[in-house]
């Protein structure tokens, strides 16, 4: 083995300058590098986005039109379709995000996840990178809902601060629910179990929220569940920002605080669970 040892001077070929000195800068760089990868994939295969437009279209065109006619739900100053549009936007973003966790199982099976876990990228960056990618997909969904809403003559608010606010809440909501989904994937570890749980989660999250009826109309226990449901805070903010004449029940600041706190907590929990998937 002496011959091999003679090569040892090359041992530390990694320049010292590469060693990280700025944890926050590195965290941001790693997160954006991972989100960038998802963006590139999405750009190459946009067909997926179109098929995802079908479900919200059905909700607005069928459910929305019928309920707007029978006026069964008290929605204050807004007509029912206008009340419902932000809810359907939040719902369609939720439905994408809640199944996003399966990508980590998929990447585990392909060996991609193992390579990322063996890299120096912090686990929180791996999780938040995925969460932001889900946010990008959510934004594409937002564009589709806006187009549907315009076609239905729903009065949208196009002032710049409002539109920027909608973008921010779509990204935060997508990130939050996709991180939740990643945490579930880390616990169940197989595709089959994950799909089963995903189905079970979406309906209660959607119906026990203010997406298609106000919390004030709910029986006490459903109302309590809706107030504990992050989706309600996303819908509440979107309702204030997206449509003309819309208003927030909790206050947009409260909505943002609740969603951001939930996101941070979920990213930390999921980062701790992440190495679980490969075990």
């Amino acid at each position, binding site marked *: 083995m002496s011959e*091999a*040892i003679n090569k040892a001077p*090359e041992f530390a070929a990694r320049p010292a300058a590469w060693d990280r000195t700025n944890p926050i800068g590195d965290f941001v760089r790693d997160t954006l590098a*991972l989100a960038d990868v998802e963006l590139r994939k999405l750009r190459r295969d946009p067909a997926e986005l179109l098929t995802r437009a079908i479900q919200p279209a059905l909700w607005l065109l069928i459910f929305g039109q019928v309920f707007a006619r029978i006026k069964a739900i008290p929605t204050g100053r807004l007509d029912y379709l206008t009340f419902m549009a932000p809810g359907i936007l939040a719902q369609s973003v939720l439905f994408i995000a809640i199944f996003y966790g399966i990508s980590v199982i998929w990447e585990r099976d392909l060996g*991609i996840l193992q390579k990322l876990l*063996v890299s120096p990228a912090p686990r929180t960056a791996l999780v938040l990178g995925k969460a932001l990618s889900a946010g990008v997909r959510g934004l594409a969904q937002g564009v589709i809902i806006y187009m549907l809403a315009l076609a239905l003559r729903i009065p949208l608010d196009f002032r710049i601060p409002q539109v920027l606010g909608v973008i921010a809440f779509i990204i935060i909501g997508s990130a939050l629910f996709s991180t939740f989904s990643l945490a579930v994937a880390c616990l169940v570890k197989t595709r089959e179990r994950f799909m089963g749980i995903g189905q079970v989660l979406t309906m209660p999250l959607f119906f026990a929220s203010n997406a298609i009826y106000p919390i004030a109309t709910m029986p006490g226990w459903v109302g309590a569940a809706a107030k504990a449901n992050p989706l309600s805070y996303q819908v509440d903010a979107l309702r204030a920002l997206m449509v003309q004449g819309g208003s927030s029940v909790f206050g947009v600041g409260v909505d943002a605080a609740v969603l951001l706190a939930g996101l941070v907590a979920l990213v930390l929990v999921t980062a701790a669970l992440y190495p679980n998937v490969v075990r």
Partner: protein
Amino acid sequence: MADIATPSAPVLTAVETQGLTRLFGSIKAVENLNLSISAGAIFGLLGPNGAGKTTTIRMLTTMLAPSAGTARVAGLDVALQSKKVRKAIGYVSQMLSADGALTGYENLLLFARIYGIPQSERKMRIVEALEFMGLTSAAELLVKTYSGGMIRRLEIAQSMLHRPVVLFLDEPTIGLDPVARHTVWQHLRQLQERYGTTIFLTTHDMEEADHLCQSIVIMHRGHAVAAGSPESLKAQVGPTASLDDVFAHFAGGSVEDVGGYQQSSRIRRTARRLG
């Protein structure tokens, strides 16, 4: 970074384990494993499917915590200094894990970023790695159009961008055709020669071990049953012995007839992806 070896204070043992053990429930996947691998060597961990090779590599790459014992990689403790270990190593998984939806260049770019290679050097490193692995003309193609051998070479390029001290490869040529296998071997030897990288690979292919490795350890049912250079092990068994004979001698069976269902199915899945 004083803990990582510097030229002024070279660490001559790249990988060292003492009593390394990993349990899964009551099953002892790896038991009391002692390894000592010189810096700059090509080392092979041999054994049939289910011998504990992958579990060992997962412990050494910080993916899995040891149940007992210690392991040091590049002079760093895998349990106590896992973040530093991750900067010092490269890893190529058993599965063909380059991202098929990205181009070769993009696959390399992602890893250049997360390994902290400064922006000013990224492009140069990537171009160099592509050239070194013979992938320059395929750089802008989507990886899903690559052959199995090309994907494997791309993955080795990915794992070398940051010049790791130790490069771990789990079954690097599994499922590859003979020509692609020889190309991968040639590139691994060149890597060792050019950069002095210590290469740690697992294999159940005796020909691979014979061609490539300067020292080997044979594992069987979680234990190391033999260690030495391929030549010395063959000499121990008999004047005309092959490594296959060495394996049969120390593990008490042929390479083919041992192995678990799960491992086999994973290998088949990889083979299927290769078409």
